């Protein structure tokens, strides 16, 4: 059996699974590879790997979240802007758990509570009810608020109001000075941060002269310079043109893949959530569902309940199905859709 699993799950995931199972058996009791994966499920061609890959994804994050290193660990968080105990809750008993190095997308209708939730992560809002640990720090502990903010950086929507200085390197240095970085370390930290976002050489430019995508990457560099464990992007691509959007998304993915940052991405563009490890769906201040992109984004009923729309390839898949045309797998991206269409027979 072990052999079969390793045929389809790469070694790292399998290791994580077994370690997780030994350490945290209760988290793994609903996952039984021995039952779900047998010789029939082993993909003959890559096209048949879908069930297996959904399964692997699930094992993977279960293992990861089980394995202690949690960047975000929130339980029973409720919040009201009006006053404590009000019935008008912007967050209503939200529990969320994000493993270190995970990339999680949060989707939800306008006013569903996404920004309210993530504002708890860097203590822009203080906890009214429930418990929250961010990078191991208790969000309730006001003595360590600056330490927490250093661990958890945020990039917002509007590229034009995130700057304090009219020179790029000063802007990044400003944040470092605020956190008492020894003065001699500042220049090297600034240039490292700029390199990470692909903006080396822009040190002496004015942020106002840059394109939207470049501005957002500078805002991101200011956050990165503090070497955070977690970076939250609250609709950071909403105002950008296609090029800027691509620049920012590519940068985010690189930080996830290479720098192993924990990424939390809020977006109204379902396509941007496709590349996340996991998706949370919010509705009216509650978590409605969570799962892999494939599980969540192909679930029409769930998305309708959340007042969201599936990505275009998923819509096409179901609409073609209605017209009697069956694609073998539900595609998530345009490229996958084109592949599926070309493979029809």
């Amino acid at each position, binding site marked *: 059996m072990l052999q079969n699993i390793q045929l389809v799950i790469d070694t790292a995931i399998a290791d994580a699974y077994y370690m997780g199972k030994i350490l945290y058996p209760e988290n793994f009791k609903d996952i039984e590879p021995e039952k779900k994966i047998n010789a029939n499920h082993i993909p003959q061609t890559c096209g048949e790997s879908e069930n297996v890959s959904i399964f692997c994804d699930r094992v993977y994050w279960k293992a990861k979240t089980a394995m202690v290193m949690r960047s975000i660990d929130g339980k029973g968080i409720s919040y009201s*802007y009006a006053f404590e105990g009000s019935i008008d809750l912007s967050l209503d008993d939200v529990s969320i758990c994000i493993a270190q190095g995970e990339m999680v997308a949060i989707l*939800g*209708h*306008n*006013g569903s509570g996404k*920004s309210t939730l993530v504002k708890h992560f860097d203590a822009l809002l203080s906890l009214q009810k429930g418990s929250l640990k961010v990078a191991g720090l208790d969000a309730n502990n006001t003595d360590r608020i600056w330490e927490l903010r250093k661990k958890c950086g945020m990039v917002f*929507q*509007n590229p034009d109001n995130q700057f304090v200085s009219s020179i790029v390197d000063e802007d990044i240095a400003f944040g470092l000075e605020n956190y008492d970085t020894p003065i001699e370390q500042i220049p090297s930290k600034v240039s490292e941060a700029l390199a990470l976002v692909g903006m080396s050489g822009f040190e002496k430019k004015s942020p106002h002269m840059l*394109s*939207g*995508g470049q501005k957002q990457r500078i805002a991101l560099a200011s956050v990165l310079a503090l070497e955070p464990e977690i970076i939250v992007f609250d*609709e950071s691509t*909403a*105002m*950008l*043109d*296609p*090029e*800027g*959007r691509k620049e920012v998304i590519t940068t985010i993915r690189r930080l996830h893949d290479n720098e192993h940052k924990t990424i939390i991405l809020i977006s*109204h563009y*379902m396509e941007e959530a496709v590349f996340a490890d996991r998706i949370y769906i919010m509705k009216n201040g509650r978590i409605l569902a969570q799962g892999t992109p494939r599980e969540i984004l192909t679930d029409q009923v769930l998305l309708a309940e959340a*007042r*969201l*729309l599936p990505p*275009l390839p998923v*819509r*096409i898949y179901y*609409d*073609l199905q209605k*017209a009697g*045309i069956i694609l073998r797998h539900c595609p998530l991206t*345009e*490229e996958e*859709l*084109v592949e599926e*269409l*070309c*493979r*029809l*027979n």
Partner: protein
Amino acid sequence: MPVELDQVSYTYAPGTVFEAAALDRVTVSIEDGEFVGIMGHTGCGKSTMIQLIAGLLVPSSGKVLLDGCDINDGGYRRGELRKRVGIVFQYPEYQLFESTVEKDVAFGLKHLALNSAEVRSRVAWALETVGLNYGEICRESSLGLSGGEKRKVAIAGVLAMKPQILILDEPIAGLDPVARDSFMQLLDRLHNGGTTIIIVSHNADILGDFTRRILVLNKGSLVMDGAVKDVFSDVAQMEALNLDVSRPRKIAHLLGQRGVAIPQDIVRYEELLTALTHLKKSGGLP
């Protein structure tokens, strides 16, 4: 009342170190009742162009004409312009500053000599139109809303004026997918009722679904102006300008490259779906 730009150029802060030429000899005419999209990458001059149309900036050279009259002429009645041309800015939430949502939406109506019942019904209509519940939200503070909700309130404030020409700068950024769609349906209804609509957006799907004509700006010049189908026909050129075509168009393009005989003038979702079903029936898909 048609809008005409005649050889309009605009330079910010001329003669200073911050001098920036934003628009370069743009000539274009938009007829009554048109639904026009404006595309172009950041900094190409879209916001500058619509502020010129709304009379908020004065051209460095050239003329902006409304109904044949130069709006920057000394004798032009500016009050008329304010009543007839409504503009929703790129960050409309910065237009909010009153203590309640109701007052914010009613703000522009002060100048229209309406009685209080009329004001209330316009405010209610505008809020319901953008998908907010008047009764629930009117007494709330605008500042205590989510990003998307603020944007809706700001848009309602402009709609309440019932302008004949409605100009919107990136209005759907920050709206959730359903709100985005119902907002565009709303613009479509206003358009069917005779309102001229000019919308700046990076969202090619939305422009493809709703507008009839697209203007493309590049570095301050008007480089394309035509029916949506025509503007989206040259995928390579749009890519060179760093712009998207609608996704149905892109998928048709990708299929075409794979040798599938699918029409290359597909712009909208329904067109793609019909073409795919048709292809399958006629054996055109492999």
